[in-house]
């Protein structure tokens, strides 16, 4: 069975040009990249059941884009995730990180 993590990884691997990505928090030996993605499962919830068995589950995934140069030119995460069967949900700008200087955009996707 394909796990939700495999689905996200497969989707983000299609980004062109490629952008470094990993499960949050992005662990780096030394400096963090200037631009990278970090993904995380926020929650998986049972949506439907029949005869005491689960028949449908939803997964809420957050993909955060971090960039030191701002948020004007970003990888097409929407395109990659939607092509892999995810539905777009909320997105929000994250405060600039005072330590690393990265700006952030968190985008939520649902997989049913």
């Amino acid at each position: 069975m394909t796990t939700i993590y495999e689905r996200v990884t497969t989707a983000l691997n299609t980004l062109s040009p490629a952008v470094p990505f990993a499960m949050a928090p992005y662990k780096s030996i030394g400096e963090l990249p200037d631009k990278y993605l970090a993904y995380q499962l926020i929650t998986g919830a049972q949506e439907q059941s029949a005869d005491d068995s689960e028949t449908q589950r939803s997964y809420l995934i957050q993909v955060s884009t971090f960039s030191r140069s701002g948020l004007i030119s970003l990888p097409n995460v929407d395109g990659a995730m939607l092509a892999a069967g995810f539905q777009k949900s909320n997105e929000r700008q994250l405060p600039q990180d005072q330590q690393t200087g990265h700006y952030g955009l968190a985008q939520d996707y649902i997989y049913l």
Partner: protein
Amino acid sequence: MATHGRLTWNLDDYLEQFVKAEEDVDQVVTDLLKENRPYVGGLLYNYLRKTSESWTGATAKTIFVSPVQKEGNYIFIEAGADTTKDPAGWYKEFGRPKQAAEPFLRPTFIFLRTKELRRLMKKVMENMGLPT
């Protein structure tokens, strides 16, 4: 790839029962929210507590649940963490470059949507003697 399904509140059949029984649905929803405001706050606190690797209590102080409100056809309460008081809740929920998120708001609301609203509504119906 095609969309796989749709998210629902899973309450349509219960609401139909109220209409059939000629109950005032607005009043039922108002009472349900009023009665369960403290529970929603407690649920947020509980999720916050169990998802926190370390505990300072800073985010817990910002949790709020509003009184029941009505705007047009919508009857609702607002619940969350007031990040104008302290940004800790923001960082916990969404993470930072060197900090994974420890989400508690979104899981709480998804739990309410998928499980708890139906259970709470069922309780109201049972109290009113309606079939569930």
